[in-house]
């Protein structure tokens, strides 16, 4: 353990003495800082103290040296561990504090005390040196904590807990806290708590004009109505599909399976676009109805109903996924028991199966509710005058009059609603689950549906499936039509404009306008995906396999970012990471980070599902055989988790490609993303190119998914039954 502590002290010192403490121009990897390593911008902390009078950076150095001294001089191991932990914690605390207090324009508080010192010149955000130093201190702290006998004395476990808690703290809680604070601030930045109540409850958020027939409603009411309707609708449709899928011998079941993949690979606004092509003013269906029945072409789509249909299309597959598990989870033996007690098929369904599914139905409803509230793509494309919270937040930031305080207030309203639903789901559904999946092989067959229920399901689900198919086919047709609705002649023009390439002097030249954003997206997604999988699975490992104080809070905080809508995250990142100590806006790094922490819950869930299937005695056997936790993870758990890892990897990759809500606040011209590029095209009315690009994205993602399926499908053949891989659970 001593050795590990000294290793981390060395890492911390290296960061302190060798790497530039602050963010450097052109980025760390440009290595421009090497040419002028002593300047006030590029110097490592040691030189900052000696040459530039930034004495306050010395806290970290003192802590590291003190930790080394303690380790050398204090003999009783537990006491040495305690002292080391204390000095490391002090060092971390001090370094964080100085970063928060002394910002770009000098000290924020204690101005008199710091007057006349170098602090008045201010400082910029943490750079590589600061990050490495803090990391070193953090691991000195966690290793010392393991030396105190915590976490069964396992430095690897305490280190992972410390790292994940810190990361979630910095990249989830810190930015969200910024939103909360800014809602109490005046536009000049002064703190004024009295402002919050009138802002939060203002009529332009909660107005109910539309309900009483006077004008329009506030975005909060609109969002709520939409979310409730979407929750009910997606649950009903999802249940119909799930019943058909599991309880009938419907012939085209494999086609229904397709439904489960589609939403994952569909960029969020594509359905909105397809609906415009169908029902917009120039839409195919609109034209048809107008010709046949003389129905006037109108803009009805750009309202509640347009968004509602789009959300039903987008989120029904999610409800379907959840409810397949729920419907299958009802133990056949209960239904058989009911039948032997002389109940007929309808009575069995009505009084046994359906009540057993109730918690699952509630879960599906709340999921649809949260997804609808958080949805950004569909309202953005179809919203028109129907304002919802997520788009209002966006327009408050990027609109003609930027109003961050309003954005923050709206974000809090949205956060309160989604978190409320999230908590309700955990509390209510979590406790009332009549889980009938016992892990014991349950023989017996599910009872077939009664005739009435079966036809009700067919009549709801099948027309809807057909509608979904039409909507998706619009994406293909739309991308080949010259100008949809006006000139439907076949053309490749959109694809050529987006992805054209030319051979010039023997060299391939990419002339399409979309190439830049396409490659940026792939690059960022492929950096973010392994990190997401890693963080998610590491968290799952801690949650399933380790016991430590505060585990419940830990689990809650890692799942939290699932309940935080992307727009809220986007705003909060803009508010938090635009200033020292962490200045990330405008970098590719912030995009990677936002993907990792947005998609982390998916990795966590998938990991938990897969890890729960691995007998805990496997790790214990490895540990008692003399392997440490790290070796155990590497040689026993990781190989057995292979499929779950691939699933998490694929899913986070795909999510990173399709994500728009948070990204739209964070992208820059230099790091333009595919989705934001498409949104830009849509806003300019350039539907052809937008749809062509979307089609290319869908094909790209399908290719990625199929490639990984192929790769890990082959591994599965060698696997034994007891570790049959589980596909990651999805949100």
């Amino acid at each position, binding site marked *: 353990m001593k050795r590990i502590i000294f290793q981390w002290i060395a890492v911390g010192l290296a960061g302190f003495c060798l790497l530039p403490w602050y963010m450097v121009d052109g980025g760390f990897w440009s290595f421009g800082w090497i040419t002028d390593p002593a300047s006030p911008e590029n110097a490592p902390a040691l030189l900052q103290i000696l040459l530039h009078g930034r004495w306050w950076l010395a806290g970290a150095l003192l802590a590291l040296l003190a930790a080394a001294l303690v380790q050398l001089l204090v003999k009783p*191991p*537990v006491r040495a561990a305690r002292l080391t932990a204390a000095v490391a914690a002090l060092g971390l605390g001090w370094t964080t504090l100085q970063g928060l207090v002394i910002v770009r324009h000098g000290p924020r508080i204690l101005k008199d005390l710091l007057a006349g010192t170098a602090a008045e010149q201010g400082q910029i955000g943490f750079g590589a040196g600061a990050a490495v130093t803090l990391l070193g201190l953090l691991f000195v702290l966690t290793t010392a904590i393991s030396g105190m*006998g915590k976490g*069964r*004395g*396992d430095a690897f476990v305490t280190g992972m807990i410390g790292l994940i808690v810190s990361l979630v703290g910095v990249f989830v809680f810190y930015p969200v806290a910024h939103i909360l604070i800014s809602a109490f601030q005046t536009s000049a930045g002064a703190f004024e708590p009295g402002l919050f109540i009138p802002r939060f409850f203002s009529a332009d958020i909660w107005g109910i004009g539309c309900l009483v027939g006077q004008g329009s409603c506030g975005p909060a009411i609109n969002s709520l109505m939409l979310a409730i309707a979407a929750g009910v609708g997606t649950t009903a449709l999802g249940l119909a599909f799930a019943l058909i899928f599991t309880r009938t011998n419907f012939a085209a079941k494999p086609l229904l399976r397709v439904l489960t993949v589609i939403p994952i690979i569909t960029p969020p606004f594509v359905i909105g676009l397809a609906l415009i092509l169908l029902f917009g003013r120039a839409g195919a269906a609109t034209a048809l109805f107008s010709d046949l029945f003389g129905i006037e072409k109108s803009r009805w789509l750009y309202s509640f109903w347009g968004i509602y249909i789009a959300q039903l299309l987008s989120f029904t597959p999610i409800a379907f996924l959840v409810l397949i598990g729920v419907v299958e989870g009802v133990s056949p033996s209960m239904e058989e028991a009911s039948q032997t007690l002389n109940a007929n098929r309808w009575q069995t369904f009505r009084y046994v199966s359906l009540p057993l599914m109730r918690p699952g139905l509630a879960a599906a409803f709340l999921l649809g509710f949260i997804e609808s509230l958080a949805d950004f793509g569909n309202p953005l494309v179809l919203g028109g005058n129907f304002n919802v919270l997520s788009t209002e937040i966006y327009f408050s930031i990027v609109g003609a009059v930027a109003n961050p305080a309003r954005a923050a207030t709206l974000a809090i309203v949205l956060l309160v609603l989604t978190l409320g639903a999230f908590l309700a789901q955990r509390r209510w559904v979590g406790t009332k689950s009549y889980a009938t999946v016992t892990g014991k092989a349950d023989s017996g067959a599910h009872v077939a549906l009664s005739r009435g229920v079966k036809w009700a399901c067919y009549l709801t689900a099948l027309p809807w499936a057909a509608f979904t198919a039409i909507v998706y086919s619009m994406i293909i047709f739309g991308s080949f039509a010259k100008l949809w609705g006006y000139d439907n002649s076949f053309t490749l023009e959109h694809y050529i404009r987006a992805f054209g390439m030319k051979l010039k002097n023997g060299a391939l030249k990419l002339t399409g306008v979309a190439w830049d954003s396409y490659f940026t997206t792939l690059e960022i997604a492929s950096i973010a995906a392994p990190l997401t999988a890693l963080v998610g699975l590491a968290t799952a490992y801690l949650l399933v396999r380790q016991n430590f104080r505060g585990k419940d809070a830990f689990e809650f905080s890692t799942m939290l970012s699932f309940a935080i809508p992307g727009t809220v995250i986007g705003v909060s990142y803009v508010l938090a990471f635009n200033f020292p100590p962490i200045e990330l806006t405008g970098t590719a790094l912030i995009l990677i980070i936002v993907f990792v922490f947005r998609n982390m819950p998916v990795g966590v869930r998938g990991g938990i599902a897969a890890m729960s299937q691995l*007998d805990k*005695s*496997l790790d*214990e*056997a*490895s*540990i*008692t*055989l*003399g*392997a*440490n*936790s790290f*070796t155990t993870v590497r*040689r*026993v758990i990781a*190989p*057995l988790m292979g499929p779950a890892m691939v699933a998490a990897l694929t899913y986070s990759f795909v999510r990173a490609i399709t994500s728009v809500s948070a990204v739209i606040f964070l992208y820059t011209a230099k790091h333009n993303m595919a989705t934001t590029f498409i949104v830009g095209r849509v806003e300019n009315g350039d539907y052809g190119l937008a749809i062509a690009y979307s089609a290319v994205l869908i094909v790209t993602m399908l290719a990625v998914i199929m490639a990984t399926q192929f790769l890990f499908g082959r591994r599965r053949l060698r*696997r*034994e*039954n*007891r*570790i049959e891989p589980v596909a990651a659970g999805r949100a």
Partner: protein
Amino acid sequence: MGEKPEKGSVVFEDVVKRYGEVTALKKLSLSIEPGELVTLLGPSGCGKTTTLRLIAGLESATEGRILIGGEDVTHLSATYRKVSMVFQSYALFPHMSVIENVAYGLTVSGIPREKAHAKAEEGLEMVGLKGFGQRLPSELSGGQQQRVAVARAIVLEPEVLLLDEPLSNLDAKLRRRVREEIRQIQQDLGLTTVYVTHDQEEAMAVSDRIIVMRNAEIAQAGTPHDLYERPNSAFIADFIGDANLADCEVIAAEESETKLNLGGREITLPHGAAITGPARLVLRPNDLALTSEPGPLAFPATVSYVAYLGNQIQYTVQSEFGEIFVISPPVAQPFGVGDQVFVEIDPQKALLVPDEPVGK
């Protein structure tokens, strides 16, 4: 602990284990000698597995000290304890071949692959699985998997071998053979072994010493013989071999004779007892006889249930001191349900234990 620490000894000093509100172990102190096979026996939830996991380092003690080989390991993680464990589920790594499984502990402690595999081969030979090295665990039978798990644990030459209900996943016939093999290997290697089971017959068959646990503490410890012949409580009497427990009253306890009142009659046991007043008489089912004749030590009863098992006949009879379970050798004319019979007690074999509830 004055004596010289010996390799392979295990000592618990006032070890307490709590999970939040729940106390899994109340101030447990025990000492296991090197080379001894000690069984931790008890009903589920009594703390025996917790004790085993504390020795392994898979749980950490809330209070107290744990010493292995005289060295304080209370805060040492499982990785660094010289202890190996055989798990109830065997916990063979399904993605590794048998030989890789057995060599795992050696390779992770830095022994080169070839050497580790050679040693693992020896281990497999010891458990009679030579030549099975290239198979996957799933290609072996339950008994073979179990032996791989044992081989994997012993090739590390641990100071202490821990076995957590190693036979519970085997069928009854195999169980007897494997437990004999385990005992054989343990004695050949002179390995300190701690064995957890809830099956008293298994415990009696393999152990040098048995520690019976109940409600998170030790109920009684001793050799199998001690526990059967000299139970210190009604619980032990009932748990180690079946026992009928009859309420009685000790009138006079002398050195070589005990007078007591049983069901209104005064009877005399030809051995001493340390109890006076209310007590319970331990009557082993096979020490009782059913007759149709009354006698000074024969108490009237009515047969309420008869089970014919071939090598024995089991009777349940209702007597004036409660329901009595009797095992008798097969006879040509067994009693039938409703017959009036007499239960005859053998005073030589009847034991006295304090009057207290048996509990769970």
